[in-house]
């Protein structure tokens, strides 16, 4: 086991625990950014300077987009289990991940012990990937709060990338750059959702007040109003007085 890699992996997981457990949105975003900055460092060999810089910029930009979007929001839902439970869950998953290499590649662990083989990929990355993935499950599948959902999704991306590093070795520089783009993309969309939720007056939790599945009949809908910004050619306005359009169009 590489102690330095192990410490960086602990930092990643700690960032993930803060991101998922904190009720203060700023603390959650800081935790997420910390995890995003540390995640590419759990690799052997380390990424080159430019791809690493791209990952740093991606993590910080993603965090900044989320930070801007939740301006004025006092709290997020946070974890109902509390940070100790999240930390224990992550620790258990991390231990499982550390040992997984023996299941994925049977015989390899024994060969490594007797010096017949080297582990080609860092097991610390697999451990951090499992731990981060375990932390992401709650926000993704039970996160009605869009910030919490976004946090979970970014953690899922980091977990997948860490697991990839742990199974197949360090990603190429190009993959690091594209992963940075993916983190920004997911954070940006989550930030757009958060802005939309705040603007719609539902805080960070948009309610699922459902529109009827098949849509209302044309006769039940209000008249079309001219489009505010006009779009390309302005909104189409049906020429007969009795016609209607669906809402949200």
């Amino acid at each position, binding site marked *: 086991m590489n102690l330095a890699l192990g410490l960086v992996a602990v930092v990643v997981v700690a960032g993930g625990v803060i991101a998922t457990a904190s009720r203060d949105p700023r603390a959650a975003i800081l935790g997420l950014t910390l995890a995003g900055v540390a995640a590419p460092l759990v690799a052997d060999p380390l990424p080159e300077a430019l791809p690493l810089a791209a990952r740093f910029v991606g993590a910080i930009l993603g965090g900044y987009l989320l930070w801007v979007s939740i301006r004025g929001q006092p709290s997020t839902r946070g974890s109902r289990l509390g940070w100790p439970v999240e930390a224990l869950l992550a620790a258990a998953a991390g231990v499982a991940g550390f040992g997984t290499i023996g299941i994925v590649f049977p015989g390899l662990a024994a060969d490594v012990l007797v010096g017949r083989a080297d582990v080609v990929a860092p097991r610390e990355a697999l451990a951090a990937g499992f731990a981060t993935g375990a932390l992401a499950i709650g926000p993704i599948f039970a996160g009605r709060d869009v910030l919490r959902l976004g946090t979970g999704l970014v953690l*899922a991306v980091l977990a997948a990338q860490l697991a990839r590093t742990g199974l197949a070795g360090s*990603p190429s520089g190009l993959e690091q750059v594209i992963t940075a783009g*993916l983190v920004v993309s997911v954070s940006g*969309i989550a930030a757009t959702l958060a802005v939309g939720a705040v603007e*719609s007056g539902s805080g960070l939790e948009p309610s699922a007040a459902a529109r009827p599945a098949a849509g209302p*009949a*044309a006769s039940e809908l209000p008249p079309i109003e001219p489009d505010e910004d006009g779009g390309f050619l302005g909104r189409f306005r049906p020429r*007969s007085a009795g*016609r209607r359009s669906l809402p949200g169009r």
Partner: protein
Amino acid sequence: MSLLPFLAVAFGIGGLSLLTRGQGRTSATIGIAGLAMATLAAAFIGPDQPLTVADGAIAGSAFARLFLLLGCVTGLLLCLAAGATTWSRGFPGATLIGLGGAGLALGLVDTGTAIAAATAGAGAGILLMLARPVSPRSLVVAARELRALVVAGALGLAAAAAVAGPLAAVRLNPELIGLAYLAFATAVAIRFGAIPFHLWAARVADAAPEIGLPLVMAWCPAAFATVALAWADGAVAPLAQPLSLERGLVLAIGAVTVALGAAAAFVHDDLEHVVGYSIVADAGIVILGLAALDPAAWEPTRTWLLAFVAGKSAFAGWAAALGSTFGTRKLSELRGWARRSPILGIALVAIAVAAVGLPGMAAFGARVSLIDLAVDGPLVTLLVVAALASLAYYGRLLAAGLLAPGAGPVAAAPDAPTRYRDPLTATLLGDAIAAISARRAPVAAGAVLALAAIALAVAGGGLGVREAAASLPPSVGAPAESFSPP
């Protein structure tokens, strides 16, 4: 190398168009100009040696060329149809970014990198659901779509890493090969909204504009599926594991999706849902291609993918034009639509022929081949019949159009289009815009007819579909097009 100009245009101008989304006309003009430039750039993509960039490699291929060219041209035609009917803010920019992500995914040699690119690019489609004013309902749907997108991407990344690593060939646990294959196939099913992952897809049809449905539900998932197919063919099939249980599960997802997707499209009254479920049903054939896990499925699956994206774009454009022309999207209120708008009627016939196919057409042959490779015995006949059931919902749409118009929106439609001339747009470009504005319904119908013609050509095997589908994915140390179809 030939892919780079396309990527530069797609990401550069697409990003600019999305950043100016708040200024409707500016964003639309930038986006449409970008789509036109991307069309030109896509035309020059060709099979070439991989270019090494930061330890990764990227190359053009005949498949990437045709896929992206079709994407840009159909994007432009959908813009024209939308401009003449119901504009969707950010559509050209989102299309460019989505196609850029698809182009990157199709050009990258490494599977993991390609998955990340396909996932990142597809995110742009979600922005189409967030047109202002944003409703809580559309926020919930967009959040679900984002969740499905990232979960599928993470599954694909983990699966690809497990099987593609340096130790996979000699030491990988055979049972994990099946698990990885199942995870990646499930990721593709999630992206397409295949049954049982269809509930969020049905809601997407509610929240996204009709012209945005192909991008969200067909183009971006198709690029992801192409990456999955290349991975299954290149990394899983050579390991020669039987994977009976896993293949059976994937096959079940594909078969149920084909049958129930068509049934759902038949029973729904809302045009958006008919389009949404028809996309889901046809995506079932792609999943059958993954279930076959046979190199022989390579060409038919990619042929079907090309016919699928072109056909569904035309169908979505048709639905948008019809809904806006008559002011309703409920089929029960659209009796006689084909009598009042015969161009849209002809377009629907062409779209149906492209989707259902005739013996001898490339798409028809591809579908039969995939079913034949995936299952044996009487199941072949059952699945072929289920796949041809799409004829039922196309027939229902057409039958409604041929009835005498009742006392509804169709009967109330004017015989001649309204003409107007906006003095503020009296420039050369303004004249063109004014001309489109004055004859909106015929312009939209014409754009849909052009989309239908493209769909028909692709389904028939024209435009170089067979050669593109048979070409190999780019790989380091080998030319991208070394494969000769049998």
